[in-house]
C-alpha cells in the first residue's frame, strides 16, 4: 500500500482523478491534482494545519458538537421518535468540519453577512 499510495511513490494518479476536480486542470484541488510536484507543493502549504498538535487543538470544537448531538438525540428520545441516523451523522460530521474550518455559528454568521453586505474578500 505504501508503495502504491505513499509519499514519493512512482505510481502516479490515473486520469480517473480528473473527474473529481475542476474541469480546468490548472485549478485542480489537492485531491484531484495529478501532477506529483504540484501535489507536493500543495501539501507543504497545508501540512501545519493537519499536524497532530494542531488537530488536537480543535478538540473543544468537537466537544461542543458532541454536546449538541447528545442533546439533539435526547430530544428525539423524549419525543419517542426514531432518529434518521445516516442524515444526523452527516449533519454532525459537517458541523464539526464547519466549526474547525470556518466557525459555523450559522444564524450568527448569516445575520452578520446581511448586515455588512460585503462581497469579495
Amino acid at each position, binding site marked *: *500500500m505504501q508503495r502504491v*499510495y505513499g509519499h514519493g511513490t512512482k505510481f502516479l494518479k490515473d*486520469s480517473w482523478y480528473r*473527474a473529481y476536480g475542476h474541469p480546468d486542470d490548472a485549478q485542480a484541488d489537492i485531491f484531484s491534482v495529478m501532477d506529483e510536484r504540484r501535489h507536493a507543493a500543495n501539501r507543504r502549504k497545508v501540512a501545519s494545519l493537519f499536524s497532530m498538535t494542531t488537530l488536537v487543538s480543535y478538540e473543544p470544537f468537537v466537544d461542543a458538537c458532541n454536546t449538541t448531538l447528545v442533546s*439533539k438525540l435526547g430530544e428525539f428520545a423524549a419525543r419517542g421518535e426514531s432518529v434518521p441516523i445516516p442524515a444526523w451523522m452527516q*449533519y454532525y460530521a459537517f458541523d464539526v468540519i464547519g466549526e474547525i474550518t470556518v466557525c459555523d455559528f450559522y*444564524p450568527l454568521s448569516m445575520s452578520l453577512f446581511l448586515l455588512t453586505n460585503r462581497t469579495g474578500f
Partner: protein
Amino acid sequence: MMRTGGDIEGILHTIHKNLEYSSRMSLFNELHAWVGLINHTLGLRSAFENVNAYVLRHLTERRNSTTSSRPDFIQKLFELQKGGKVDNSDIFNIINANIAAGSDTTGLTLSAVIYYLAHDPRIVQKLREEIDTLSSEGKVSDPITFAEAQQMSYLQAIIKETLRVHPAVGLPLPRVVPPEGAELAGYFFPGGVSAGSFAPG
C-alpha cells in the same frame, strides 16, 4: 446543520450530486474538461455554486472582523498568508476542500458504527463495561478526551473493525503502474496499466 436539523443552503445535496457526477464521469474522464468548457461557454452556474458562496461568505466575514482570533483553519491560513506562504486562491481552495470533502466519509463511518452497535447488544455491553471500569478508576473525564479515548482498547477495536467491514471509500483510487511494471499482491502488472485498491473488496 444539527441546530437546524437539516441541510444548510443545499450544501449536502450539492456534495452528493457532485459525487454522483464524478463517480460516473471518472469512467469517461476525458469528457470532464469538455463539460466544463460547455458550461462556461453557456454561462451556466458552477456545480459547487452554493458551497462556494458559503465559503466566500465566511471568508469575507472573517476578513472584515477585527476582533475574531478563533484558532480555526481560516485564522491559521490568514497567518500563513501574512508569511507569504499561501495566497487568496489557496485559502479558498483549502477551505472549500474541507467543506466539500470533510463530512461524507466520517458520517458514513459513524452511521456504520451505530448500525453494528445496534445489531449486537453484546458489543454495546462490553463498551459500556469498558467505560464504567475506566470511570471508576478515574481514568476518563466527562467528556472523554481524545487522549483518553486513544487508551480505550475496545473502543479502538470497534472503530477499526467498522472501518474494515464498512470502508467509507468505495472507490478504487487508481494509480498508473510505472513503465517497468510491478508485482503487487502476488500478481505482475505491466507498466501503464491502472491499478487501485478497492477497499470493500
